[in-house]
């Protein structure tokens, strides 16, 4: 059941080092600690995903980011395999915010237009309903049958405005944008 790593094509362009990349990562919230990773590998050996994925290795991703392999990092599909369990962060001897640095990298990938479809779907659901899932009418009726109080309706004026202010518009399916 080995998963196929979908790495971007290796050409001169993908392998170009961009020394400014690490600074871009480090200026994001929780991204600063990228600079102190000394490549011991505790993160990878603690990582539950790395145990079952043939391609996901947090230590390698951090090294590539330090070196400035911008496209190789941001276009890699494996970047999205982090479960955000934070075991790596807890075990890093250098106090690197490993899981947060990896999240910064995924956020940067989104800014470059690399968004797995599921996130467009989830963000659009929140924009349309306030909730991350579109909860079917049937479930709401079942709540009543079970004697549960009705689910409140989120004030979407507030929710949508905040999503837009936070730059979340690019995550939405175009049909949802009012």
């Amino acid at each position, binding site marked *: *059941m080995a*998963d196929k790593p979908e790495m971007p094509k290796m050409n001169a362009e993908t392998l170009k080092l961009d020394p400014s990349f690490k600074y871009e990562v480090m200026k*994001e*919230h*929780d991204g600063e600690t990228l600079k102190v990773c000394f490549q011991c590998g505790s993160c990878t050996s603690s990582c*539950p*995903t790395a145990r*079952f*994925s043939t391609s*996901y290795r947090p230590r390698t991703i951090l090294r590539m980011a330090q070196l400035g392999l911008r496209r190789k990092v941001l276009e890699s599909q494996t970047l*999205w*395999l*982090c*479960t*955000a*369990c*934070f*075991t790596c*962060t*807890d075990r890093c001897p250098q106090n690197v915010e490993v*899981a947060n640095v990896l*999240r*910064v990298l*995924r*956020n940067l990938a*989104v800014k470059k237009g690399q*968004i*797995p479809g*599921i*996130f467009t779907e*989830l*963000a659009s659901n*929140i924009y349309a309903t*306030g*909730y*991350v*899932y579109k*909860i079917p009418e049937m*479930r*709401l009726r*079942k*709540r009543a049958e*079970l004697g*549960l109080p009705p*689910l*409140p*309706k*989120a*004030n979407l*004026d*507030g*929710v949508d*405005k*905040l*999503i837009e*202010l*936070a*730059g*979340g518009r690019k*995550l939405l399916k175009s049909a949802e944008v009012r």
Partner: protein
Amino acid sequence: MSDLRYLFFIGCTIPYRVTNYEVSARKTFAKLGIELVEMSDFNCCGLPVDPASHEMMMVLAARNLCLAEQQGLDIITLCTGCAGTLRKVNRALKEEKELRNRVNEYLSKVGMEFKGTIEAKHFIHVLKEDVGFDRIKDSIRKPLAGLKVAEHCGCHLLRPTKIFGWDDPENPEVLKGLIELTGAECLDYMDEPECCGYTIIAIDDKVALQLTREKLQHIKMAGAQAMVTVCPSCHLMFDMQQSRIERAFNEKFELPVLHFPQLLGLAMGLGPDELALGDLRVSPSKILEALKIV
């Protein structure tokens, strides 16, 4: 007015497909004197979109925190993800001035302001710190003697330790302590604090299900008759996905997975129907027979 009064943040996953958790939680909380105040407005905690946009996660969480501040109540949740996210963002906004200013700038456009006056708690924090073990012990009518279970606490209540720090992530004890109050025995098993895999199931289901499968294997090896969770998402992986895992790996587990309030409710003497045990995918009938409940 009770001193155990909280704003009930139900989140999205429970009303979407894990209502049995809510039913059992409401019943057991009432017996412990916990008063749940319903929210008249809330939105997704923000966690699901964090991988794509931290900023969007932050405003979504902040909006919920502001709604709770307006009510002057601490938040209680049943979901480790919601609790972890609201707790983390609450703390970051309280401590990091620059971040708070930026988020408050957004919030001001919708007539809100983060002030930092409340706390967000998962219900097992509430049980341990606010209700207290003695009161829970007093509520037990039918101790579940002889029942062997294993716990899965969920990453978002444990790590990063720097933020949570209320349990040992390498050897979590809080849920274990609560389980033992019911009279059941809580077994240790290999890699106990490991992740359920839920967050990546839509990205790579093979990797996600292998994580879940390995936990089920370790729990069976330890000899547990059931598993106990405190998160709707973890529960979906272990209960709802269990038959899929059995098919994919040609392996049998038949391990019932109870929400902690269901286990507690049984020990309080509530009936299986009152606790919506019939909604579980993996039937708990064997353990109910062993406990002489049916």
